[in-house]
């Protein structure tokens, strides 16, 4: 009887594990993807409203480029993952560099916006940065596993820096908390500032999304 009781408890545990596996590998993954799509849809709608207000023509190359890029991200977000990001970055770096050296998305967009005034240029650049931030968040920060790893790394670095430059770190932290900075946006800006590889990788993904969006 005790044996039966133990086995029944184990069966109960295994059935719960099935539920957790579904949630972890299918449920939450789909939810993060839908959230990313919704955020990019929101940016696309803002871009549309910006054009509808007369700031830029709907058939202007810069508008079409940004919209195609956003469409590409929305359409193929189900393929986006950190592994895919790393794999594609390495693959492009070693086997397809010529495309990005000769005619990057960045260069094409700059050419397209050359005829626009500074305010409009700045606004379009803002849309592009916000879309890249969404991508960064989706790839690096959206899953709980990655967030936990990121938090552990940050805490580790913080302890090391505190031991070396205690007072300066405390002042910087206080400033950060006071300004209620958005952690994701701060992490994105900080990473982009200090990593040329990340800048190039995001550029690669932007170009890829634009290529997919045109299809």
């Amino acid at each position, binding site marked *: *009887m005790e*044996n*039966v*009781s133990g*086995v*029944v408890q*184990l*069966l*109960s545990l*295994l*059935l*719960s*594990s*099935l*539920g957790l*596996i579904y*949630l972890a*590998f*299918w*449920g939450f993954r789909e939810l993060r993807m*839908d959230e990313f*799509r919704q955020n990019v*849809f929101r940016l*696309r709608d803002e871009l*549309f409203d910006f*054009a*509808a207000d007369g700031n830029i023509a*709907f*058939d202007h190359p810069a508008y*079409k480029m940004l*919209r*195609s890029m*956003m*469409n590409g991200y*929305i*359409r*193929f977000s*189900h*393929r986006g*993952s950190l*592994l*895919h990001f790393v*794999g*594609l970055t390495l*693959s*492009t770096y070693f*086997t*397809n560099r*010529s*495309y990005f050296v*000769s*005619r990057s998305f960045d260069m094409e967009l700059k050419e397209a916006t050359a005829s626009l005034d500074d305010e409009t240029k700045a606004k379009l650049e803002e849309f592009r940065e916000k879309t890249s931030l969404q991508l960064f968040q989706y790839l690096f920060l959206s899953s709980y596993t990655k967030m936990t790893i990121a938090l552990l790394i940050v805490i580790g670095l913080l302890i090391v820096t505190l031991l070396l430059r205690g007072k300066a770190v405390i002042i910087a932290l206080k400033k950060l908390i006071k300004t209620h900075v958005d952690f994701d946006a701060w992490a994105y800006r900080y990473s982009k500032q200090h990593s040329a590889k990340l800048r190039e990788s995001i550029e690669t993904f932007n*170009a*890829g999304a634009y*290529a*997919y*969006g045109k*299809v």
Partner: protein
Amino acid sequence: MSKPAKPLSKEQLRQELAENKAELKFIRQSRNIHAIVSLGGNLFRYTALVAVFYYIYLCVAALAGKTTLANIGINVLANVKISEVVAWLFGGSGVIFGLNQRRLRRKTIEHVQTRNIMLEQRLDPNRTSSQLTPRGETNPRDN
């Protein structure tokens, strides 16, 4: 009447061809990497599922020939704890709630987006699309 586009020079055409080839190469690379990554991901996910089902089989095999379903049923009923029942009900109804919320969200997307597309096309007849389904799901041909 719009002016006809200036014909491109040989050099420009060659450059455009090279760029298009590089772009196609990028798309192919992306597709290949996606295939490898999703193979690895699916292997990991389904291995976890198979492992759980295997242990369920072992549990059932351990009881086979030694006890009956009736005995198991009596054992479950005799040892039922209110806290466990409530926990199961909570978990189960949470999942059902989530699935229904998702279904409602997709219905809402279908309703709102159809209208949105129609209104946007009035302003921009050449409006481009993300090619998702009307319910906001991945297009089956993009899988």
